[in-house]
């Protein structure tokens, strides 16, 4: 019903700047798809192309199997929630919700029931006669979603909808959005630069960088098996440690200032090949310093409550280890570390691609 299909989509601006460089992926009906990437990676442009707010330079956008490249935004059967909510400031909440329906000449009683229903779902009942300026950030956010709901579209588009809210409200609204999408069973495409939001909300995660798709998959697939160094360091917090090293015989990678890591995938590479080793902070385990294959000097520790982050140098390169609350390592200590071979990722330093 509400599937979205992008094929080889490109966007080149008048100045020659290429914002989207050939993007293809499918979003199945009812899926929550999150586009994530650093600012300027083209994710918002991509969303706006799906909405019809940006023209398509080449390639196709299809909604529900129908190519919509030249279809007006109003006729694409989509609804969009904007970063700044884009509520009409001179209209009451009720009129904000009803505006799109009135423009579509929906019968009055129908408008009233739909507005009432949206207000009930979002808990906006008492706010219907207020103006947007009289609402808090979270309430405005709800009105923006209500404006999307009343239309009953095939696809919801979200453009960084939570970035203007404070941290606590953001977590709360995140849960509400997910619950809403589930209960309505509607397809959603959601843009964010926040990887926690991306991981928690998505059924399907699309990681973008510099106008290209780096990887598409479920959050857990991408976390467990990042296909590029970019994805590896972008998804996960704190980010994955990347260490440069060289391959030695027997599936061993040697780090420049001592230290060796066993990586099964390195066995297939010729000795002396330069590689990059990726280790997530939570996959490195504390060992006694004596006789450990990896040794790190602790520069300082960050206390996060349940866990501690030890920042230091390993083989002359920056390294972060996530340890337990009871860990006693202090600034200046030398600690030993070990890593399960299966938890080590290997990347080509030239292309950044994963080596399996």
């Amino acid at each position, binding site marked *: 019903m509400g599937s979205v299909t992008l094929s080889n989509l490109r966007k080149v601006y008048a100045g020659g700047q290429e914002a989207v460089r050939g993007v293809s992926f499918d979003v199945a009906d009812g899926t929550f798809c999150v586009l994530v990437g650093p600012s300027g990676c083209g994710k918002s442009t991509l969303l706006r192309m799906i909405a019809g707010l940006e023209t398509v330079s080449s390639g196709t956008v299809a909604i529900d199997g129908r190519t919509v490249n030249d279809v007006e935004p*109003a006729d694409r059967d989509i609804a969009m929630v904007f970063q700044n909510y884009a509520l009409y400031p001179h209209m009451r909440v009720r009129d904000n919700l009803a*505006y799109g329906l009135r423009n579509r000449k929906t019968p009055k009683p129908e408008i009233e029931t739909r507005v009432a229903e949206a207000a009930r779902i979002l808990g906006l009942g008492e706010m219907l006669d207020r103006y947007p300026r009289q609402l808090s950030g979270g309430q405005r956010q709800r009105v923006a979603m209500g404006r999307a709901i009343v239309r009953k579209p095939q696809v919801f588009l979200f453009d960084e909808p939570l970035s203007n809210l404070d941290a606590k409200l953001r977590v709360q609204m995140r849960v509400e959005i997910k619950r809403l999408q589930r209960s309505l069973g509607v397809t959603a495409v959601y843009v964010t630069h926040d990887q926690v939001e991306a991981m928690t909300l998505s059924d399907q995660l699309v990681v973008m960088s510099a106008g290209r798709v780096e990887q598409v998959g479920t959050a857990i697939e991408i976390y467990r098996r990042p296909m590029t160094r970019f994805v590896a360091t972008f998804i996960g917090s704190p980010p994955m440690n990347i260490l440069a090293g060289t391959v030695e015989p027997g599936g061993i990678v040697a780090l420049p200032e001592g230290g060796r890591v066993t990586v099964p995938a390195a066995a297939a590479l010729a000795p002396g090949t330069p590689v990059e080793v990726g280790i997530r902070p939570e996959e490195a385990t504390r060992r006694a310093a004596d006789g450990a294959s990896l040794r790190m000097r602790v520069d300082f520790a960050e206390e996060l409550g349940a866990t501690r982050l030890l920042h230091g140098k390993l083989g002359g390169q920056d390294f972060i280890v996530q340890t337990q609350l009871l860990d006693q390592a202090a600034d200046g200590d030398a600690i030993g570390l070990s890593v399960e071979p299966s938890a080590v990722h290997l990347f080509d330093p030239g292309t950044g691609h994963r080596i399996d």
Partner: protein
Amino acid sequence: MQAKRVTFGGTALPLALLAPQLAVTVVFFVWPAVQAVITSFQREDAFGLKTEFVGLENFRDLWADPLYLESFGTTMIFSAAVAVSALVVGLLLAVLVDRVSRGAEIYSALLIWPYAVAPALAAILWAFLLNPSIGPLTRLLRVLGIAWNYNVDGTQALILIVFASAWKQVSYNFLFFLAGLQSIPRSLLEAASIDAAGPWRQFRTIVFPLLAPTTFFLIVVNVVYAFFDTFGVVHATTGGGPGQSTTLLVYKVWKDGFIGLNLGSSSAQSVVLLVIVIALTAVQFRFLERRINY
């Protein structure tokens, strides 16, 4: 953090610093205004030898004078015509420039130029273009079958001064409307287009309501301009004629006072104008600070 206040020790320095501005205000504004109020209660004899206090008689005479009431009506029509036409054209140009993607700065700069022209010069320019015997536009009108001669036809004379006055004001309105349009978040219009509002509907239901504060401010400014800054326009073109047809209140003040030498009546008229401008300003401050504020 509150900015630190600099305080002066004595009162001499602050007074000295304020003196030039105060002097200008007192000499050119307060003094004549007070003089006008005083004179408006007096009557001078024909030879200027004797002045007597007559109370409100000058004002009563005004309301009984059909010429004054006619001038009042003319001024109302004139102000409304100037404000409406300058606002509509200014808004139209602003909307067009707002839509242009390339060269918008050039259009803006060119459209602001007329504001730099003094009202009297603007008037002479239009009087030349529409001159009954040599005006190029007159010839055009004649082709269209309109006999144009503002020296004879009172309505045409009024149209001429409306044109000359509004032309300049279009620039001013354009500038404010353009700034107003550019301050409307792009995403509002995008949301409206997803909400199935076409360009005209977007303008009517989103853009125009959001421009209301600007529009209201400009209405007041335009009316004040039409009431008080148009002496030069009338003086340089029609001289208030033919007959009484373009004698605006502000022109009549001058005519009755300096040509007719009826100082009492002229002063009473300027006091009426003073009251009008105070009222307009009060309305503006009151409303701009409240209501239309998003």
